[in-house]
């Protein structure tokens, strides 16, 4: 696949600061992931940008003094995945109770 890369130039700053490049991703993933990663206490800075509107690329920046940026990114993705799982479970449960209540009333 190789849809994830790193922007060069951060090698001398330790493992905590990195800009990752996501291919074929948009604000959908970028903004959702940013709100999660930016709220980790270990993270000093987190932001994302789409450098050019005609290129399907997303730059995702993480800076931290305490942890490796790649670990924080992975944790963010795992949390977002868990969030999706929980949303599906909650939604389907609510849908079932709604349908059951509706079947009773009709």
């Amino acid at each position, binding site marked *: 696949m*190789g849809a994830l890369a790193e922007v060069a130039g951060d090698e001398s700053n330790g493992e905590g600061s990195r800009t990752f490049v996501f291919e074929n991703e948009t604000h959908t993933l970028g903004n*959702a992931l940013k709100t999660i990663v930016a709220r980790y206490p270990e993270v000093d800075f987190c932001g994302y940008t789409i450098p050019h509107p005609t290129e399907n690329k997303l730059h995702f920046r993480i800076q931290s003094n305490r942890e490796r940026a790649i670990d924080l990114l992975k944790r963010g*993705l*795992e949390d977002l*995945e868990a969030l999706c799982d929980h949303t599906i479970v909650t939604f389907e449960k*609510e849908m079932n109770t709604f349908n059951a209540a509706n079947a009773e009333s009709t």
Partner: protein
Amino acid sequence: MPEERNQPLSYLNEFAIKQDPEDYGLADDVFSIEAFKQKLHIVVVRNDEDGLEFDMIGVYPAIANAFRRLMLSEVPSMAIEKVYIYNNTSIIQDEVLAHRMGLLPLKADPRLFSYRTEESPETGTEQDTLEFELKVRCTRRKDTLKDQAHFDDIYKNHKVYSGHLKWLPKGKQAQIYSESSVSCVHNDILITQLRPGHELDLRLIAVKGIGKDHAKFSPVATAYYRLLPQIELNREVTGKDAYLLQRCFSPGVIGIDENERAYVKDARYDSCSRNVFRYPQLMDAVTMARVRDHYIFNVESVGALKPEVIFVEAVKALKKKCRAFIDEIEAQ
């Protein structure tokens, strides 16, 4: 249930939007999946032929927006992608006709099909392609009387509808699907009009795609959210002013009791216009606000998938994205 928690509000003032002084816009709280599970509430409000309405309470704006964007542009559906025109003597141009065909909503369940790949042949396979034909020829009715002027009486087939599409099953498709489960959602979409001698002879190829590529693949007619409005009366409003106040809001929002006293009946469906601020005698009577983490989602399907399925598919699409990148990081 939502009344018990501390709701973050955005106040709608005459010219500005204000927040509570100690409210930092959810920006400084720490994310943990347990806290999210505690906070998230989903309540289904309505699910009928007009669409699905549900409340999502306790999420960040970016998450709610991601779900909305995913429903619009990342959930797949089937649509006509290629149109082979063997004959078109109608007055509508080939390219315009082809574009119109692409926009017809199809009933086929996209989950049962796969995307076309580079390897699949030009004509497609039974797993990734649906084929239709449209053969219509307009003729003059023989039994027409002289004084009849209505087109329906003098011409045959002068209006081409989406119902004229004929499904051509590929391979074993006829055993798995029926014509009614794959063809157009509506049979009465007018495609074009013909006159005697005009003829259409088309072969149509439908494939699976996503809304990011072309809007015709979007499974939703509309998918939007808004924040729950909250309206409070600061003082008693009676008599003539009560009726004036009622007219400042959407119908059904403000009620008037038997003592001609205005009260807030149901703020949910208010359009949040700030009409009250036009009347100096009413300005101080109301506090308008919106609950910042209470999203009212409205999802209206085009017809292939049910709205509740579209939402779940959207969340699954986001999950799949995350999984793909986690796997890539782990592989390094």
